[in-house]
């Protein structure tokens, strides 16, 4: 299976030649297979959002190469139509809502794809369904009077309606309540089942630790870790340095293992952890 995303020694600098020059990405190399779910972590300003923009064609490398769906982003023509294949959901995407009806807002992307109205209607319905909203009720309402959480769902639906092969989410859970976060996790889960590639920039390792195929950690533009979740769990130094919190049940399990108690380390849920603990004192 060939990689759907290949990043090779990517370098990128903002505003070169001005007093505001800043090297945002330094020698990044990573790849994602089709159907992977990749989590991208790192402190503020580490270049995560810049990397996301490199992957959907908004930016192109100064040095190095970025191949998305087999296409080189150095080619301007390829870049200008890459948005159809790699959908990028920005941070606080509700800020981009501008249509007067929810239907038109979600339909904006598909309309730009040039699809028929029937196809658009179907896509809008499906996309709203994926974010937990019923198209029949919501389609005619105006988005501006809705709560922040609702607007977020509609904005995400707008990108889902493009049905992109790759979905990139930039901190989609920021400011969402537990129900909203659950919705995001559901979307990721559904995409994984359909073998659709997803990348998510986040600060919260807990929510996705059981779903992620690969994890990338950036720091000041450099890639300090790229590997599987299992490999990351074996690097407590990195977890601590970047203050990536593990779920409580894992913290308990690791604390117990440190005290030499016989618990298996790769538990995937609270139930499994509880079962392991109960086994210690039957």
């Amino acid at each position, binding site marked *: 299976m060939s990689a759907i995303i290949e990043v090779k020694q990517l370098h990128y600098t*903002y505003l070169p030649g001005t*007093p505001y020059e800043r090297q945002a990405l330094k020698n990044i190399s990573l790849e994602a297979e089709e159907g992977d779910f990749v989590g991208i972590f790192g402190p503020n300003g580490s270049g995560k959002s810049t990397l996301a923009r490199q992957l959907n064609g908004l930016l192109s490398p100064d040095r190095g190469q970025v191949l998305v769906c087999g296409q080189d982003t150095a080619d301007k023509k390829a870049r200008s139509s890459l948005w159809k294949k790699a959908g990028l959901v*920005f941070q606080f995407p509700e*800020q*981009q809502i*501008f249509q007067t009806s929810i239907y038109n807002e979600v339909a*904006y992307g598909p309309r730009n*794809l040039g699809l028929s109205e029937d196809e658009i209607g179907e896509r809008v319905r499906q996309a709203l369904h994926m974010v937990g909203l019923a198209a029949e009720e919501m389609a005619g309402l105006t988005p501006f009077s809705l709560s922040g959480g609702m607007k977020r769902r509609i904005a995400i639906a707008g990108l889902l309606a*493009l049905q992109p092969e790759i979905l990139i989410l930039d901190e989609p859970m920021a400011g969402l309540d537990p129900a909203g976060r659950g919705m995001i996790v559901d979307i990721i889960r559904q995409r994984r089942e359909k073998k659709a590639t997803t990348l998510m920039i986040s600060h919260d390792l807990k929510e996705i630790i059981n779903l992620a195929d690969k994890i990338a950690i950036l720091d000041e533009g450099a890639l300090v870790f790229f590997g599987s979740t299992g490999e990351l769990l074996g690097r407590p130094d990195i977890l601590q340095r970047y203050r990536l919190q593990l779920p409580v049940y894992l913290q308990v399990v690791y604390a117990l293992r440190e005290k030499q108690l016989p618990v298996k380390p790769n538990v995937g849920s609270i139930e499994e952890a509880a079962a392991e603990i109960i086994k210690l004192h039957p």
Partner: protein
Amino acid sequence: MTGIKLGQYVHGNSLLHRLDPRTKIICCAIIVVAIIINYRWFYLLFFALLMAAAIRASGMDTRFVLGSLRSIRSLLLVTFVFLAVLTPGQPVWTLGILQVTREGLTMGVVNLLRLIILYLGSMVLLMTTSPMKLSAGIDWLLLPLSRLKLPVHNFSTILSISFRFIPTLIDQAIAIQDAQRSRGAQFDAPRLGMRLKSYLAILIPLFEASLLRAEELGEAMDSRCFSGHPNQLRMDRLQFQAVDLYILIFMLGLLAAGILIPILL
């Protein structure tokens, strides 16, 4: 984030940067008066050279700023041509029904110089005075008006909030543009209609965000007992020094000379 823009404050430590903003604002006012009441080309040329020297002294790239005069070249050209042709007097050159007069040429040059002086003067002011200092200076100078029960402090609060949010608005506009591009908006489409529609996709969300911002800022300001009081801390940082006084005296001297020259000559 964008690079250095014309007319935007550039940090520095030259004499002009260190002058009190009130001095600079008053000098601008003096210059405006001086060049209106006097139309001797040598007087105005002196002022134009003074402005160029000021730019040099402020540590800015002189060629860059002087070169930027190109951006108003149409205005300069139109002004010169209209005055050259429409001023009555001794004809110097005729082209059909259009007559270029000697007086016209003189007036053309005079007003060309006036425009150049105003342009360069405002550049010096804006590029050597930080927005906060500028609004503090305006605040102080408008203070007497508040005795007339005019809402001067509210005006300076408006200025201050605008300065504070301009970078934020720019960043937000860029982010929204990127987001809409990622959904297929075409900002450099060949058809004007498509481009306009795409720009609406930036303007409407920006407007909406600004309305929300205004509401939330209002709540935050009310919660801290907003009452339109003067900003003492900001004005206190304005320090009038000896050099400010010398410069003001110098400029007033130039103004006086401008008034006296026509009388003496």
